[in-house]
């Protein structure tokens, strides 16, 4: 593990010893958590003075249909600390495809609002506690979640006109 990431990984393991914290490509720390510990974990990494992950860059999702799960991926960056301690953290949460529910983090990072709406819109993952969970990119009457690997367009086929 690169030197600058060591203290961050230790700080996380001190509080959550059961979590596996890895160092990945491009100096990203990566940790996988359960949906139940999500809120506690996020509150912790935001407020801990050594971690100070006050900036949520992105919330996105991946459909691992082969394994029967969705993965919600958060990318956190530390903004308020000095450059030497600036860490980057990726948090992954696996949820079953048949009941994808994750706690919302809008009250921790307000920027999550639109990100979570987009994930809900395109992947169909429900963010519990989101103040306004509705579609954002697609029309409000759209059926289905297009980014899913098994998505089939439900709209009636129009007859092809050649002349």
């Amino acid at each position, binding site marked *: 593990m690169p030197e600058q990431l060591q203290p961050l990984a230790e700080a996380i393991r001190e509080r959550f010893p059961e979590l596996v914290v890895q160092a*990945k*490509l*491009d100096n*990203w720390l990566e940790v996988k958590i359960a949906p139940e510990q999500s809120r506690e974990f996020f509150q912790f990494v935001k407020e801990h003075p050594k971690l100070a992950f*006050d*900036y*949520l*860059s*992105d919330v*996105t999702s*991946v*459909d691992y249909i082969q394994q029967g799960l969705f993965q919600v*991926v958060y*990318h956190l960056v530390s*903004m*308020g600390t000095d*450059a030497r301690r*600036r860490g*980057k953290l*990726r948090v992954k949460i696996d949820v079953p495809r048949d009941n994808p529910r994750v706690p919302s983090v809008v009250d921790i*990072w*307000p*920027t999550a*609002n*639109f*990100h979570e709406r*987009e994930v809900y819109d*395109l992947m169909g993952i429900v963010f519990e506690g989101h103040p*306004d969970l*509705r*579609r*954002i*990119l*697609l*029309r*409000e009457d759209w059926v289905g979640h*297009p*980014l899913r690997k098994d998505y089939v367009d439900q709209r009636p086929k129009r007859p092809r006109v050649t002349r």
Partner: protein
Amino acid sequence: MAETVVTSEVMQGGPLPAERELFVNMGPQHPSTHGVLRLMLRVDGERVLGLKPDVGYLHRCFEKIAERRQVTMVIPYTDRTDYLAAITSEWAYVLAAEKLMGVEVPERAEYIRVIVGELQRIASHLLWFGTFALDLGATTAFLYAFRERESLFDIFQKLTGARMLYNYLRVGGVRNDLYDGFADDVLRFLNVLEEKLREYHNLLTGNRIFETRTKGVGVVTKEQAIAYGASGPVLRGSGVPHDLRKAHPYSVYDRFEFGIPVGEHGDVYSRYVVRMQEFYESIKIIRQALKTIPGGPWMGDVPRRMKLTGDVYTRIESPRGEVGVYLVGDGSDQPYRCHYRSPCFVHLQLLEPMGVGHLIADMVAIIGSIDIVMGEVDR
């Protein structure tokens, strides 16, 4: 039917609108919303009481399409996300693919990318300047800015073949080398630009009407900016000295000396000042890069059959802020998942805290100060 849907969304389960309150649609067809953006406004006369952005009118399924294209074939699609800063849009994606494949980019290609990227920043800011001033009523600025953009388009066309959507960056480098005379063309342009910037400042900066319309309007505090995920000039306008080219340098940006303009008050005027200053910083970078650019190949060693494995999230500093690409590979030559984090998408959330309490005319200034490109918001 549409009416009930919209009203209930705006009211969010609250009481029915009072007699003084009016629901007004700003967009999606509107000369000042910069693209197909719809703002659902709750107004009392001209004063904005509540605001909800409605986006998705330009959604073209970029992320789904990327899952069915080979690595290089995705690049023209990335051009069309932030179409006013196509180079930086491509760069974020190409950087992610290179990291996943472990491809090294030769030095010359990195320098070319920096030069072209900064030229792109200038082009994008010129357009922002022109349209921002136009929205506020200063029509001349628009024509001046587009005159400069034409010179840039000529340079880009000679280099890449296209005026606006270049398809120029490749995994491992760039598509072709600089043409003979590129440095002369660019340096000549930069000299002209410096003169013209004086003209632009004469038009707007210090203009009493401009200052009244922009100072104290659309304020974002430092804490708000960080909490709402702001980046780029919106973040720097609020006093946070964060620029990805300095904080997490990519490519060869750590070899150049340039400053990060930071605003003081977080209002529309501060963001204006930041972007105007960024012109000069970009000029500095380009001049340094042209002086020290090495020879050599412009394309690295890339396997014929590309294979993406693992996942990575790369972030670059586009003229609008932090563009991120989360790329997941499954061992094939097509991305398994390609997510594009758009800075303008995130900034739209700031419209409500910035706009409530202001007049509709101020909304125009605020939208202009965020520099929205709907292609990036909707993908």
